[in-house]
C-alpha cells in the first residue's frame, strides 16, 4: 500500500487562474482523506490555503519572481498568444515561463531531499522538468496528470508552442503512468504524442461536495425579467467566447429579453468586448471579470442556462458547477465534461447557428429545461472527488506492486 505521495503543482486556490488549481485541491484533499500523506510542492507561497490533515505544503521560492505576485500565475500559466508564451521575458519577473519552469525544477530537486515518498504525482507540463529530474534522482515512479494539453491551450495545431509541446511530450514519454481527465484528452495524448493507450488511465474530475450548494438566489436590477445565458471561463481562444458571442447575436435577434453574462478574465477580453460591439449586441452582454466564491454563486443564481462553448476542453469543471447550481447545460462536443454529464445538450463550437437554436430552445421549452436539470443532477452522483481519489489510489498501488 502506498503511504506517501509527493505532488508537484503550479497553482492552488485561492491563488488559481482556473480549473487546474481547483482540481489539484479536490484531488489532494480527497486522496489525503483516505490516509495517504501528501507533500505538495508549489512554486511560491500562497496564503490562506485551506489546511487539511495529511497535506503538507512546501512553498518554494522561485527567485526570478521574488514578489508574491498574483499576476505571475495569471500571465504565465495561460497566455493566449501561445507562440510567444515561452519566449518573451515577462516584464515583472524578468524570466520567460520556460525558464521559470526549469528553475522550479531545480528548486524542487533541492528542497525534496529530506522527504520520504513512494510516488511522484505531477500536474501538467509546468511541472514536467521538476518531475523528470526528481524521478531520475529518486528512482520513484512518476504519475503525470494531464489536465490540459498544449493543443487545448493553443486552440489548435497551428498556434501551438513547440518548446512547450516538447516538454509535454518528454513528460508523457518518461512518465510511468499518465492520468487524463477525460477520454477526450486521452485520445488527444494518443493522437498528438503517440503515447500507448495502455499507459493512459482516465480519471474524471469531481466537484467539491462539502459545500452545500452552488446557488445563490439572485434576481435583481438589470437582470430582472430577463433570460440570462451564462458563460464562465478564462477569456481565451481556447474557451470559445468569440463563437459564443456570434451565437448570442442570433438568440437576441429572436428574443430581445435575453442577456449574456460573461464571467472570467483573460487576454482575449479586449477583443471580446470589441467583437460584441461590432456585432451590435454590447447592450445585451455583461462582462463581470474574474469572480469567485459568493460572487460566482450569484452569477450561477442569476442564469437560466449555462453554455460551455470551448474549442477544446479537457474537462470543464464549470459545467459541473452549473449542474450543481441547478442549471440546464449546453456543452461543447469537444469537452470531457460531456462524457459524464449525459443530461446535457451537445454543440459544435463552430456551429453558432446551432448553438443559438439550442440556447433558444432551452429558454423556450420549460419541459426541456426541467428534464435537463433532472437528468444532469443524476450524473453528478458520479462526479465526486472521492471516486476520483479511489481510482487514483488504485493506480498508485498497481505501480508500486510492480
Amino acid at each position, binding site marked *: 500500500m502506498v503511504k506517501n505521495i509527493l505532488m508537484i503543482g503550479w497553482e492552488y486556490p485561492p491563488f488559481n487562474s482556473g480549473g487546474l488549481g481547483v482540481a489539484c485541491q479536490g484531488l489532494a484533499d480527497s486522496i489525503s482523506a483516505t490516509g495517504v500523506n501528501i507533500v505538495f510542492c508549489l512554486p511560491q507561497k500562497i496564503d490562506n490555503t485551506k489546511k487539511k490533515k495529511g497535506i503538507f505544503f512546501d512553498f518554494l521560492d522561485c527567485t526570478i519572481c521574488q514578489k508574491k505576485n498574483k499576476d505571475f500565475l495569471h500571465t504565465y500559466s495561460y497566455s493566449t498568444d501561445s507562440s510567444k508564451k515561452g519566449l518573451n521575458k515577462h516584464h515583472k519577473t524578468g524570466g520567460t515561463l520556460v525558464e521559470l519552469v526549469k528553475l522550479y525544477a531545480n528548486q524542487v530537486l533541492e528542497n525534496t531531499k529530506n522527504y520520504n515518498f513512494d510516488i511522484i504525482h505531477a500536474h501538467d507540463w509546468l511541472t514536467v522538468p521538476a518531475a523528470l529530474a526528481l524521478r531520475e534522482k529518486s528512482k520513484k515512479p512518476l504519475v503525470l496528470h494531464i489536465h490540459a494539453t498544449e493543443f487545448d491551450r493553443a486552440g489548435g495545431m497551428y498556434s501551438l508552442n513547440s518548446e512547450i509541446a516538447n516538454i509535454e511530450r518528454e513528460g508523457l514519454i518518461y512518465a510511468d503512468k499518465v492520468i487524463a481527465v477525460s477520454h477526450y484528452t486521452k485520445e488527444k495524448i494518443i493522437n498528438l504524442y503517440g503515447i500507448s493507450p495502455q499507459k493512459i488511465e482516465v480519471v474524471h474530475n469531481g466537484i467539491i461536495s462539502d459545500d452545500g450548494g452552488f446557488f445563490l438566489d439572485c434576481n435583481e436590477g438589470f437582470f430582472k425579467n430577463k433570460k440570462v445565458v451564462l458563460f464562465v471561463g478564462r477569456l481565451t481562444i481556447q474557451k470559445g467566447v468569440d463563437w459564443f458571442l456570434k451565437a448570442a447575436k*442570433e438568440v437576441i435577434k429572436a428574443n430581445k429579453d435575453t442577456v449574456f453574462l460573461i464571467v472570467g478574465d483573460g487576454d482575449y477580453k479586449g477583443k471580446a468586448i470589441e467583437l460584441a460591439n461590432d456585432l451590435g449586441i454590447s447592450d445585451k452582454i455583461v462582462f463581470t471579470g474574474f469572480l469567485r466564491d459568493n460572487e460566482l454563486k450569484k452569477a450561477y443564481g442569476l442564469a437560466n442556462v449555462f453554455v460551455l462553448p470551448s474549442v477544446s476542453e479537457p474537462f470543464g469543471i464549470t459545467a459541473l458547477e452549473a449542474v450543481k447550481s441547478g442549471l440546464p447545460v449546453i456543452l461543447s462536443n469537444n469537452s470531457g465534461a460531456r462524457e459524464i454529464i449525459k443530461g446535457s445538450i451537445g454543440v459544435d463550437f463552430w456551429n453558432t447557428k446551432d448553438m443559438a437554436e439550442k440556447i*433558444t430552445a432551452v429558454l423556450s421549452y420549460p419541459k426541456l429545461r426541467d428534464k435537463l436539470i433532472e437528468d444532469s443532477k443524476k450524473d453528478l452522483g458520479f462526479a465526486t472527488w472521492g471516486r476520483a481519489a479511489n481510482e487514483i489510489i488504485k493506480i498508485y498501488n498497481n505501480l508500486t506492486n510492480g
Partner: protein
Amino acid sequence: MANICLYLHAHQPFRLRKFSIFEIGKNITHANYFDDEINNRHLERVIFKSYVPTIDLFKDLIKKTNGEFRLGLSISGVLIEQFEKQNPEVIKLLKSLIDTGACELIGETHYHSLASYFSEKEFRLQIDMHKRKLRKVFNSIPKTFRNTELLYYNHLAPIILDMGYKGVLIEGADKVLMGRSPDFVYSAKNHNELKLLTKNYRLSDDIAFRFSDSHWEEYPLNASKFLSWIKSSLQNNGSDDQTVNIFMDYETFGEHQWKETGIFDFLKTFVLEAISQGIKFLTPGEVIQKNKLKTEELDIVEPLTWADTERDLSAWIGNDLQKDIAYRLYGLEKKVIASKNTYIINQWRQLQTSDHFYYVCTKWSNDGDVHKYFNPYNSPYDAYINYMNILRDLEFKLN
C-alpha cells in the same frame, strides 16, 4: 410434432428534416417537415441490403419446399407509400411473394402510430386506411392484426374484433403468461373469438438481437443448435397444437444483422432442416384457424409492447419530454380534422409514427444501446427540440 410461425415486420418512418426554432411560423402556406433526401437514401440502402435479398430467399425457399415454408408479413402503410414513390419495383417483387400463397399479409395502423392509446377514432381510421392500401396494392384482405410495437391490452380487443380481425400478434411477456408457455394459442379476455399469438421472445431475440454478438456465450449460432432450442421449448416433446412464434423486424435480415454475419445462410439452413425434421411452418392466420375452439384467456390490463425489459410503452411515452409531445400532438386532433386541409391532416398523421417518440427516449443503460442504433439524433434532447419546433409550426398553421 409442432409448428413454427415466422412473422416479420417491415417499416421505415418518414424521418423529419432539421427544422430550426427560428423557422417556426415563417412559412405559412407550405412547409415540408420531412427529409426526402435522407429518407430516400436510407430506403435505397435497406432495399438493397435487406428487402430484396430476403424476398428472393423466401421465394426460393417456398419453391424448394413446394410451399411448405410459409410466413406472415406486415408492411407499414408509410413504407408502402415510400416504395410506391421511390422504388415501385419492390412492390412488384412483394406481389410475386404474396402470389405464391405462402405469405400472409398482416393488418396494422397505416401510419405505424400509437393512436390506439390516444384516440379510438384515429385508431380505427388508420386500420381502415391500411386495409384499403393492402387491398389496392396487393389485392389482399388481412385477417390477422398487429398493432404498432405489438401494443395490446384488454381494452383494444372489441375494437380489433369490430374491425374484422380474428387474431392479434402480441408479446409473450412473462408478466402476462405468468409461467405458461408462449407456444400455445390464447384468447382475449372475455372475447374467445379473438385469438392471441404470443411471441416466443427468447428464441426470437436469439436471432434478432444476439445472432452476431460475439460476446454471447452461444455465439456463433447455427441452425441445428437453434432447432434443438425450439424443440426443448415445446412441452411433452411437442404436439400439433403447439406453435413457436418467431416474431421480429424484417430488417433483421441484412440490415440489423448484415449479410456478412451469415444471417441469410442461417435462415435458409434453419428452414430446410426444420421441414426435413417434420416441423411445419404456419402463417399466423393458419395458426388461428387451427385453434378456433376455446382457448385460455390472457388478462392484459396494462399496455403491453415488445420493447425493452419493461415490455410497456416507456420507450415511447416514458419520460416527460415524450409525454409532452405525444399529448400535444394528439391534443390537436379536433383542430386538424376541422381544418379539412388534407396536406395538414396527412402531416399530422405522419408525425404520429412511433419512431419520432422513440428518438426522445432517455433510457441510457441496457436497452439504451438498442435505442442508440436506431436513433438519427445526437441525443434525445435534440430529437425533442426538432419535434417541438415542427409541432409549434403546425400549431401556428392551425391558428
